């Protein structure tokens, strides 16, 4: 009897509080102004909830092999996509973002408080109610790990070494669009071996345009490249493709045969795998310009793309499904061999 009365009182109290809240929201009294920030208790609660969620949810993250040194593509993307809110070793957070609620944190003191899996989780999923976005390409965990690797190292970087990574070295091209690409792909368009940044110089213009279009339309997936081409119109994409196609005789598309590997020269007929060179050159006779040149391309980039193709995670131009079919039949060893052989073939007489 007594217990029933207590429950009734509690229920009535809850209803009253809920009703009062509803009236306040209806009356436009909810405190949504960013100027005032959160109440201390709200701030504490939100941060506590976020930290607990990241700690627990990142338990399921499988940590890849030790995060390596290559950081250029992550640094370049940090400069494009992250520094605007978080600042960087080379600049403070912009005035504008310091008036947000919550204020995007300066990452230098925060990064050491998260482990690798937690950094990965935050970059991959973003954080609700904070304006921290999720990674644009859900299929590209490799990019998210590259980002985590870069973030781990970022607190040690001074402005100069950060800029060297994020904006490249050497002279900047005049054309601002090309200059943007050159930050990672180099003013010479040779990319960076070991960083999974492909060489573009001398690549077929049709292929480059097809790849850029695919990124722009979300048919090829990369949190880095989709952001990089965002906002470029068709004429700009065409101009970029032509620019890189016309660069450097030392670039791709040379007629040196790939070095050695059976898979590149003759394929693996028993597995239904044709020779790479039949479509990608070098070979006599006509070749579809939408198929990329591979001789001279960096091995780590090629191997990554082949794995993405094999997993069905690599989009691209309308011709990409052909490569998905073929790559699906490759073994890990064949992927490594094919990638290495095209990279090495390019080194003969190359830089």
């Amino acid at each position, binding site marked *: 009897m007594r217990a029933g009365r207590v429950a009734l009182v509690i229920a009535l109290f809850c209803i009253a509080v809920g009703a009062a809240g509803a009236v306040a929201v209806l009356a436009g009294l909810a405190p949504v102004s960013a100027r005032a920030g959160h109440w201390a208790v709200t701030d504490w609660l939100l941060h506590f909830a976020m930290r607990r969620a990241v700690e627990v949810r990142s338990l399921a993250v499988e940590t890849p092999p030790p995060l390596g040194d290559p950081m250029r593509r992550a640094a370049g993307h940090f400069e494009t996509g992250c520094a605007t809110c978080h600042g960087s070793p080379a600049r403070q957070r912009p005035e504008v973002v310091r008036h947000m609620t919550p204020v995007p944190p300066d990452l230098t003191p925060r990064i050491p408080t998260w482990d690798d899996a937690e950094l990965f989780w935050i970059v991959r999923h973003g954080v609700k109610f904070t304006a921290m976005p999720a990674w644009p390409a859900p299929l590209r965990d490799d990019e998210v790990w590259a980002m985590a690797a870069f973030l781990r190292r970022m607190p040690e970087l001074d402005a100069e070494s950060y800029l060297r990574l994020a904006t490249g070295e050497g002279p900047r091209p005049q054309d601002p669009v090309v200059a943007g690409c050159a930050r990672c792909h180099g003013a010479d368009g040779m990319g960076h071996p070991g960083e999974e940044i492909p060489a573009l110089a001398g690549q077929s213009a049709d292929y480059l345009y097809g790849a850029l279009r695919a990124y722009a339309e979300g048919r090829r997936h990369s949190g880095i490249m989709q952001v990089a081409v965002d906002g470029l119109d068709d004429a700009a994409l065409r101009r970029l493709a032509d620019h890189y196609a016309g660069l450097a005789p030392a670039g791709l598309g040379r007629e040196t045969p790939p070095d050695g590997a059976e898979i590149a020269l003759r*394929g693996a*007929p028993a597995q239904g795998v*044709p*020779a790479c060179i039949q*479509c990608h050159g070098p*070979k006599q006779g006509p*070749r579809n310009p939408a198929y990329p040149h591979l001789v001279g391309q960096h091995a780590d980039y090629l191997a990554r793309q082949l794995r993405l193709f094999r997993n069905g995670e690599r989009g691209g131009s*309308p011709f990409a499904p052909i490569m998905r079919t*073929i790559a699906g039949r490759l073994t890990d060893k064949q992927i490594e061999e094919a990638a290495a052989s095209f990279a090495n073939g390019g080194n003969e007489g190359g830089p």
Partner: protein
Amino acid sequence: MALRIASPTGAVLVVLVAACDGPQSALDVAGDGATRIADLFWGMAAGAAVIWIGVVGLAVYATRVRPGEHSGRTAKLLLIGGGVVFPTIVLTGLLSYGLLLIPELREPSDGRLIVSVTGEQWWWRVRYETADGRTVELANELRLPVGEAVEVRLESRDVIHAFWVPSLAGKIDMVPGRVTRLSLKPTRTGEFRGACAEYCGESHALMAFPVAVMEPAAFAAWLEDQHALAAPPSTPETERGARLFMAMGCGSCHAVRGTAAAGTIGPDLTHIGGRASLGAGILVNDVDAFARWIAETDHVKPGVRMPAFGMLAESDLRALGQYLESLQ
């Protein structure tokens, strides 16, 4: 009353008899092996009919004519005689006859011609080897001279298939890692159809091939033509098709002898325009069918290993079709 019953029965009979006809019927025989099998079938059918009439007659006798009790001696005689002795004799006879048939179906050929057929998911790689040692690789079609015993060597590259041309002979499995043999001796000319007779994956039902039995002279001329290199393109459209064929990388899997295309993964296309069908017996052979096959390969034959080139423009597909059709 009797008529009303007779007429649907007649209709059923017509349908059944009609189904015995046609290019893929074991009862429409055109070869030695198939004749033996058909003879065996008709003999067994007649025997089965006699036994059936006997059993039904006995049942009628026991329940209607003399429904009373029968002596235990008669019953025992019937059980042991009809249930043990008779089937043992009949089945032993049939088994012996069947086993005796097998070497006959595989009897050594005249040795003038050896045809190797390799089953692959889901098509047939065909190689002709003549007594003079010349070989030529073809695909998805079998042509044979009438009256000659041809040795067919059967292999598989992937899973177990079975080679069956019902009008010519029985079926024999194609087992990976083994060569099975079959002797085909066609007895009359005509167009027939063979099919894979062992479930071999999702497009098993789309793995067939046309068979033509020809007069020896016509056959020899045809085989000579197959040895020839591909006809070079002769019109601007077929020339464009030939260029597209090379540019798109078709030659990395397919061979067109006489060009740079020397792939061995898929069917040899040197004379594809002259074949009776496309896609291993499933499409008619014309420009439209080529275009459809190239653009929608995986729809026409689900699970097929060839990637579809649906991204090509209609005009390119037609040019490729024109070129392939010109490869007579």
